[in-house]
């Protein structure tokens, strides 16, 4: 399995154009953005009174914001599009390049799909972790240059709290990415095309967390429509966060309109999405004829 993972990793990271534009753009783009702001800050004397980049003033909070790109509404509507495009291109690319015929006889089909899902998720996770570190370092430097405090101070307790919060956000981000990868994979495997994978993926990315139909359900006084909202990945990711941070359900709908889902319910729904989409991708590929 380790060799298979190395193979997937190598294939993807060696595709410099693809990964630069769709994955490494997060850390590289953030580094470039912060560098420009720091240069502006250095050159403009007036800016010495504060940081140019928006900040909470605490590195412990700033470094967590990156994960909103993939797990929090509304940032994730567009934030997920680049990783989704990346995943769809990697899956469908094997059809475009005609390379499945080289891979399928060499390992079990299910293993090929699961490893690809894992490798893609790890690559995007690496980019997001790097981005959050760059945000922390950049903001720290900016605050120092501006002569502003950037807390909290590094103590054992602060580090322990940060490690807990960061792990939580990273795990929620990873679940979101795994669901995204399984959806992009299924769409690309079913349509056997990059365009098909992208269109279905973007549709999923836009409609899945959309509150339009939530509003529609409330306007029509149809609790059964509103209730559907409780089964979306984004709502449940945020509900899990709400339970873990505030120890209560996320109040996304008017109180009393529907029951607020428990932590166990949300974890169950997320597991269903993850396992269901992964099983779908594996099933589709297992049954598929690899033709030219």
């Amino acid at each position, binding site marked *: 399995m380790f060799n298979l993972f190395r193979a997937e990793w190598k294939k993807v990271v060696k595709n410099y154009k693809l990964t630069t534009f769709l994955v490494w753009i997060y850390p590289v783009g953030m580094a470039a953005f912060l560098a420009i702001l720091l240069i502006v800050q250095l050159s403009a004397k007036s800016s010495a009174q504060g940081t140019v980049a928006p900040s909470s003033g605490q590195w412990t909070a700033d470094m967590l914001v990156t994960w909103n790109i993939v797990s929090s509404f509304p940032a994730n509507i567009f934030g997920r599009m680049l990783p989704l495009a990346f995943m769809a291109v990697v899956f469908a690319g094997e059809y475009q390049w005609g390379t499945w015929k*080289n891979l399928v*006889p060499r390992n079990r089909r299910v293993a090929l799909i699961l490893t690809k899902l894992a490798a893609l998720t790890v690559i995007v996770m690496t980019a997001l972790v790097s981005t959050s570190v760059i945000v922390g370092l950049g903001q720290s430097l900016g605050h120092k240059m501006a002569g502003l405090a950037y807390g909290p101070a590094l103590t054992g307790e602060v580090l322990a709290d940060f490690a807990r919060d960061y792990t939580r956000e990273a795990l929620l981000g990873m679940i979101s990415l795994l669901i995204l990868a399984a959806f992009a994979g299924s769409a690309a495997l079913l349509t056997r095309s990059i365009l098909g994978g992208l269109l279905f993926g973007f549709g999923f990315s836009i409609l899945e967390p959309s509150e339009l139909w939530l509003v529609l359900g409330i306007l029509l006084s149809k609790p059964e429509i509103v209730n559907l909202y409780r089964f979306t990945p984004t709502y449940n990711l945020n509900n899990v966060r709400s339970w873990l941070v505030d120890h209560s359900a996320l109040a996304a709908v008017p109180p009393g309109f529907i029951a607020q889902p428990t932590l166990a319910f949300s974890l169950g729904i997320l597991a269903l999405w993850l396992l269901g989409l992964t099983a779908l991708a594996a099933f589709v590929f297992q049954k598929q004829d690899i033709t030219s």
Partner: protein
Amino acid sequence: MNESVAIRTENLGKTFGRGKKRIQAVKNLNLNVRSGQVYGFLGPNGAGKSTTIRLLMDLIRPTQGTVHIYGQDVRQRPQLLNRVGALVEGAAFYNYMNARDNLEVLARTANDYRPRRISALLEQVGLADRAHQAVGSYSTGMKQRLGIAAALLGDPDLVILDEPTNGLDPAGIQEMRGFIRSLADEQNKTIFLSSHLLNEVEQVCDCVAIIYEGEIVRDGAVADLLTEGKAELRVQASPLDKAAEVLGEHWAVSRDGAQWLTVSAQPEDQPHIIKRLVAQGISVHQVVIQCQSLEEYFMAVTQAEVPANSRAKSEQEADHV
């Protein structure tokens, strides 16, 4: 495990599509390829060669029948494919990576990464000097060479090659021919070779099967097939007129220039012909067995199938009406 038979298919069939778009690409295919053979697989475009190879490699699922590799059903024991290396319908690689990286990816996918093996194969197929260039910059012939290297990565017992000489120059074709033969003779590998180049197949293969419209229409040892049916003997003798008269009593004879006769006889008739001529006091200078080439045989077989199939289709259409 039956090691003496590398490939055995039983009533193998594959149908694509449904309803009016239904295409029966392979029908009731029965192949029997013995270990150590170089087995040629011939057929015109669209005859079902590549579909058959994809069925052998478990890339597509049969709609009927089974594929056995070394005596075991490949669908039930997919790990059997570790013993098979294949170049299927032209080489396809990740163009943005170099040759070495492409082979590494394939070797790791098979959980069998040996850097020295990769270096040796790149040397063997003549790509060692350009192993660090992106495959996208390779010519078709170079990609084919890399495809051969990829097929041999796992040191397979059975090598399936689909048009391996596509894109190679004449020297490359000759080199490939020798290479394929050496795989069988020196490394005891079984080779299943699909090719359009009939001359190549004739020179390299021990046995051939001819597939036409998804069905095997002939198979057997190359030597047997070429002497089957249309064989001729060319006789140089003097006096030629008297020789023609003597042989004409038993066989169909025609003049072939001023010094030769063409006799429609089988190779085993050669001693009788010489005996009859000598008995009549005729000087025999040369007797040459003139077998048809594989190309002639292939054309004869496939063209004979055309009217038969057209007839069958007409009858089928008439039934529908």
